């Protein structure tokens, strides 16, 4: 491969002649992980697709601002997380005057989602996760599904490791309680 590591990819994007090629490599490399990160938060494939495209476009436009002392993956993850949280905030605002909450709507859409491939137990877990506050949901998904380390999550969410540990602990407790109740 022409681009051996993330630094090569970033240099390639910044250069004029290899920019498009390097950017495609970057998308290919991180699209699946970022897709799943966003998808677990917004459930709908269409919304995830929009947010993922926006994430990569913002990354391309802001590549000059990327500082090479931090990890490219962490930087991309942070853009994706911000995009997702802003999207959820807007969605919640649009549900203020309706009878259902955005979270209830997410649970309903999960049930009828043609791109949800989980069994009954996985569906129950996803439904329990959707009942968590969004910050706890983020931390839980990043730790449980994406196997990120606390210091990586800390860099992405700009939160202290201690607070993250507490947040994850609360999330697990709540999920267990919800699952026991059912």
């Amino acid at each position, binding site marked *: 491969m022409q681009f051996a590591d993330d630094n090569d990819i970033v240099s390639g994007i910044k250069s004029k002649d290899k920019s*498009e090629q390097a950017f*495609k490599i970057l998308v290919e490399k991180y*699209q699946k992980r970022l897709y799943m990160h966003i998808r*677990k938060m917004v459930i709908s494939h269409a919304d995830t697709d929009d947010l993922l495209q926006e994430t990569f476009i913002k990354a391309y436009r802001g590549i000059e601002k990327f500082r090479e002392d931090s990890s490219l993956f962490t930087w991309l993850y942070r853009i994706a997380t911000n995009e997702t949280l802003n999207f959820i905030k807007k969605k919640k605002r649009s549900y203020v005057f309706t009878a259902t909450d955005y979270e209830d709507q997410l649970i309903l859409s999960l049930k009828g989602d043609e791109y949800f491939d*989980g069994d009954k137990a996985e569906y129950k877990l996803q439904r329990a996760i959707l009942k968590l506050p969004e910050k706890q949901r983020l931390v839980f998904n990043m730790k449980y599904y994406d196997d990120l380390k606390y210091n990586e999550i800390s860099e992405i969410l700009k939160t202290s490791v201690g607070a993250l540990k507490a947040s994850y602990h609360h999330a697990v407790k709540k999920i267990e309680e919800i699952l026991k109740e059912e």
Partner: protein
Amino acid sequence: MLKEENNISKKNPFKTPKSYFEDLPDKIVNRIKEDKERTSYKRTFDIFKPYIYMAAGLLALAFLMKSGLSLLVDKEDITSPIKTQTAYSEDDTIIESLITDDYLFYTYINSEDESIESEFSSEELEEYILALNNIEYDLYFELE
């Protein structure tokens, strides 16, 4: 703990449409290209925007000035020339009727006299003049 207790796998339960990840890089690159074209067009427009606005402003000003001037000119056209012309035509008839040279006036008078003379006989005229004199005398005596 969570996994063991509830028998839940850590497998990601979400799927994507077929060939979604194969097509995505090109899709994003095309979107960036489109955005760049739009931005460059917008940038070009932004560069010329002040000049376009200035030209539009000048055109509007010129139009307003032209409209204003034409209104003023029209006003003059409506009032002054017609008034002058009307005045001229009215005055003209008056002047034409009043300002006649002495010769014409004289002949006009004479012609009238002639017509009067032609209508009255010399005797009748004499009587008329005498009657006029008598009136003058009568008036004179009355005043005294």
